[in-house]
C-alpha cells in the first residue's frame, strides 16, 4: 500500500476491572475505505469505537494515525485528526433547526463567541449540496424523519472535516428505501475521500456496503478480510462461534375451518388505520411489514386496548371483543410486547420475578396479598422455559442483556395464558445468537399452546424466515399478502419498496 493507513491499531488492550473488553486487537483502516465492524453485544465493538474516538485510553498497544504513533489520544485530539462518531442516538438537538444543528459543532471548534447565522446557513447549504440531499434548513430536527435526522448527523460530521466517520448501528430506525439512500450518501462520502466505519449486526447491509469486514467476539478480533471472502454463514459463525439454524420455520399444519384466534373485520383507528380485515388461526405466525408510520403499531396497540376511536369488529376465538383498557385485553388473552421494551415493557430496577408476575398480578393476589410460592414456582418454570441466562429470577432486569430482557417480556405474557401474542420488533437490539433462540421459543409456543402470533418487524429476513404469511401495510391499509413459497426476502423487499414509491423521503 502506497499511503499509510488512516488509522492503525496495534495490539490494543482494554480492561474494566476483571473484564477484558479488548484483548490484543490490531486492525487498520485505509483512507476512503468502507469498513464494517461486526459482533454481538458485549463483543468489544463499542469499546473499540471509544478507543478510536479517544474516550477510553487503552491499557496496552499503540494507535497510529497517518502512520504516526499518537501518544495520548483524547476526544479533542481524535476530532482534530478527523475522527467523527455518530452514535446511535445521533446526539442532535431536537428543538433546534437543521441549520443550527449543523453549524454549532463548527463554531464550537472555532471557539467563537458570536453566532453568524448567515455564514452558518451558507455552510449548512453547502454541506447538504455536497451530500446531494435536500432538507428544509429551518425545520426543527424533531420534525424530521429518522432518515432526515441521520442525514443531519452525517452532514454535521462532514462539516467537522471528518476523514473517518464511525457510524454506530446507523440503519436501526430506517426503512429499506431510506437505507438505500443512506448507502448512496456513504458512497459519495467515500468518493470524496472519507473513510467510513460501520458498526452493524445486519448481515445483508454488511455484505452490501462494506469493502472490508472485521468481526469481534469476546473482545478479540476473530475474522478480518475483504468482504468478498465472507457470506452470511461465515459471518454468523465468526460472531457466535457456532453454526446457527438459519433454516426456515416450518409452518404448522393449520386446519381450515377452525375458529380464528383473532379476527378483524373492517377495523379502523382514527385517521391512521382504515378498513383492516384479517384472520389469524391458532398456531399461526403472521408477519406485518411496512414502513414506520404505516399504522402497524397503532393497529397492535388498538388490539391491546390502547387505541382511540376504534371502529369495526374484533373477535377473539369467535367472541366479539372491544377492549376499553389493557386490563380487558389481558383478560381476553391478548399479549403485547412493545417496540421499546425498556420504556414500555419492563420495570428495570425490579427483579425478573416481579416483572414476570406484573402482567397478571390479580391472578397471583387472589386476596390482598401476593401468593409468593405460586409466583416463585411459575416464574421459575418460565425462567427455564425461556432459557434466560441469569443467576436466578430474583436479579434485577436491568442487569440482563437485551436478549434476556426480551425473554422476560415474552415469558411474562405466557404466564397470563395469552392466546394472541403481538410482538413489535421482537428482536430489536438482540444479538444473533439470542435472536435465533427467541424465534425457536416463539415457534415452540405456537406449536404447543396454539398461540396466534402477530410479528411486526422491519427485519425482512426475520419475517421471511419465521412467518406463515406476511401482510404488507401502507398508509393504514393492508396492501398485500405473501404466503408459502412466494414468501421470500426479495419478494418482501419488492412489496415494501413498491408501496413506498413516490412518497417523500
Amino acid at each position: 500500500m502506497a499511503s499509510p493507513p488512516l488509522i492503525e491499531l496495534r495490539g490494543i488492550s482494554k480492561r474494566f476491572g476483571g473484564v477484558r473488553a479488548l484483548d490484543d486487537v490490531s486492525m487498520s483502516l485505509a483512507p476512503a475505505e468502507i469498513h464494517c465492524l461486526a459482533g454481538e453485544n458485549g463483543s468489544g465493538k463499542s469499546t473499540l469505537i471509544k478507543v478510536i474516538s479517544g474516550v477510553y485510553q487503552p491499557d496496552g498497544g499503540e494507535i497510529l494515525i497517518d502512520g504516526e504513533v499518537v501518544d495520548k489520544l483524547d476526544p479533542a485530539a481524535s476530532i482534530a485528526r478527523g475522527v467523527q462518531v455518530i452514535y446511535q442516538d445521533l446526539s442532535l438537538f431536537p428543538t433546534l433547526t437543521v441549520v443550527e444543528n449543523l453549524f454549532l459543532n463548527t463554531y464550537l471548534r472555532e471557539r467563537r463567541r458570536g453566532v453568524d447565522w448567515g455564514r452558518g446557513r451558507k455552510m449548512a447549504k453547502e454541506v447538504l449540496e455536497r451530500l446531494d440531499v435536500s432538507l428544509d434548513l429551518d425545520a426543527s430536527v424533531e420534525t424530521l424523519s429518522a432518515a432526515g435526522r441521520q442525514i443531519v448527523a452525517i452532514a454535521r460530521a462532514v462539516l467537522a472535516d471528518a476523514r473517518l466517520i464511525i457510524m454506530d448501528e446507523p440503519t436501526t430506525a430506517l426503512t429499506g428505501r431510506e437505507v438505500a439512500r443512506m448507502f448512496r450518501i456513504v458512497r459519495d462520502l467515500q468518493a470524496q475521500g472519507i473513510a467510513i466505519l460501520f458498526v452493524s449486526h445486519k448481515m445483508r447491509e454488511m455484505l452490501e456496503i462494506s469493502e472490508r469486514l472485521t468481526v469481534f467476539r469476546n473482545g478479540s478480533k476473530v475474522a478480518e478480510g475483504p468482504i468478498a471472502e465472507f457470506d452470511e454463514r461465515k459471518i454468523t459463525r465468526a460472531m457466535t462461534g457456532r453454526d446457527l439454524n438459519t433454516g426456515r420455520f416450518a409452518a404448522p399444519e393449520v386446519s381450515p375451518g377452525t375458529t380464528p384466534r383473532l379476527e378483524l373485520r373492517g377495523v379502523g383507528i382514527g385517521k391512521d388505520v382504515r378498513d383492516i380485515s384479517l384472520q389469524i388461526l391458532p398456531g399461526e405466525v403472521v408477519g406485518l411489514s411496512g414502513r414506520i408510520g404505516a399504522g402497524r403499531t397503532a393497529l397492535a396497540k388498538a388490539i391491546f386496548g390502547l387505541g382511540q376511536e376504534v371502529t369495526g369488529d374484533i373477535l377473539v376465538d369467535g367472541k366479539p371483543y372491544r377492549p376499553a383498557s389493557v386490563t380487558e385485553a389481558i383478560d381476553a388473552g391478548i399479549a403485547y410486547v412493545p417496540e421499546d421494551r425498556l420504556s414500555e415493557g419492563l420495570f428495570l430496577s425490579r427483579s425478573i420475578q416481579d416483572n414476570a408476575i406484573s402482567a397478571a398480578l390479580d391472578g397471583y393476589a387472589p386476596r390482598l396479598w401476593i401468593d409468593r410460592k405460586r409466583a416463585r414456582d411459575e416464574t421459575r418454570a418460565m425462567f427455564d422455559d425461556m432459557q434466560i441466562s441469569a443467576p436466578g429470577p430474583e436479579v434485577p432486569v436491568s442487569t440482563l442483556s437485551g436478549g434476556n430482557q426480551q425473554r422476560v417480556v415474552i415469558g411474562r405474557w405466557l404466564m397470563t395464558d395469552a392466546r394472541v401474542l403481538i410482538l413489535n420488533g421482537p428482536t430489536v437490539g438482540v444479538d444473533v445468537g439470542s435472536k435465533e433462540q427467541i424465534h425457536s421459543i416463539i415457534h415452540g409456543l405456537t406449536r404447543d399452546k396454539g398461540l396466534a402470533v402477530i410479528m411486526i418487524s422491519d427485519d425482512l429476513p426475520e419475517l421471511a424466515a419465521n412467518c406463515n404469511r406476511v401482510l404488507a401495510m401502507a398508509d393504514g391499509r393492508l396492501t398485500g399478502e405473501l404466503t408459502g413459497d412466494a414468501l421470500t426476502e426479495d419478494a418482501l423487499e419488492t412489496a415494501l419498496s413498491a408501496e413506498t414509491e413516490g412518497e417523500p423521503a
Partner: protein
Amino acid sequence: MRLFHNADVLIALILVVAMVFIGLVNPAFWQMANLFSLLKANVVIGLMALGVLLVMISGGIDVSFPAFAVAGMYIVVRGMVEFEYDGVVIPFLFATVIGALLGLVNAGIIHKFNMIPLIVTLGTASVVRGLVLGGIGTSNVNINQMPDALIAFGRTDVLTLERANGTTFGLTAMILVYIAAALVIHLLLTRTMIGRSVYAYGADAEAAKRVGFNTGRTMIFVYCTAGALAGFAGLLHSSMIWLANPRDFVGLELDVIAAVVLGGASIFGGRGSVLGTVMGVFILVMIQNSLILMGIDTTWQRVVVGGMLIVAVAITALRDRRALV
C-alpha cells in the same frame, strides 16, 4: 400553517384578540392612563421573567428568584439606610451582584450534583428568605426612611400627558430599563454561542456535552443571569413603590412562570424567546389589570393566574409532544 409553527406569531395573535376583547368589555382599558399603568406593572415581573425564561430554555425551573429579589432589595436598602448613603448606580450594582452570587449557588449545586433545579431552587429560596429575615431584619423600610435618590429614580417618567381636568400622568422611565434588558437578553440568546448553548442544553444536555459545550459555564450563565435580573428587579420594585418589605414577592414565582409559559417557552426546555416572554408578561399583567378594572376580588385573581398557567402548560405540552412524533 407554516406561520403557526412560530410560537411568537400565535402569542401575538392571542395578545391582540385579548386586547380587543378586553377593550370591548371595558372601554376604560384603552385610556392612556390605564395603558401607562399597565406598562408600569410589566417592568418588575418582566425583568424577572427574562431570567426565568433563561432557566426554562435550559430545561429547568426556578422558584428562587423572588427570594433573591428580596435579598437584593432588602439588604441594599437597609444598607443604604444604615450608612446613610444616597445614590442610584452603586445600590443597583450591589443588588444585581447579590442576585448573581446567589444564582451562582444555584448553578453550582445543580451542575455539581446533577440535581433537579426545582428542588434546588426551592431549597435556596427558603434558605435565603430565612437568612434575610433572621440576619437583616423583619421590619419594612417605609417611604419616610427610603433613600431619596431611589424614590426619585423610581418616579422618573419618560413621557407625561395631561388629563382633561389638568392633572398629569406619566409613563415610567423604568420601561426603558426593561426594554434594554430584554434587548440584551435577546441578543445574548440569539447571537452568542453561550446563548445558543442554553437552547442546546435544554434540547439535550447529553448531546450538548458531546458536541463540546462547556455545560458548567452554561449553567453559571443561566442561573447567575436569572439571579442578577431578580436582584436588580427587586430593588427597582422597591424604588417604584417607595417601600422595602422583606416579606415581599411571596407567590410571585407562579405569576412569572405563568407569564413565561404563556410566552411559548417549553417546560421541557430548548424552546422559548424573549419576544414571546415579553408578550406573555403583557398578557398576564393585562388580564390581572382588567380583573381589577372589572372589580373582581383579588383572591379570584389567584384562581385565574393558576388556571392560565395550567392551560398554557397543557397547550405547550401538547405542542411539544406532537412535535416529538
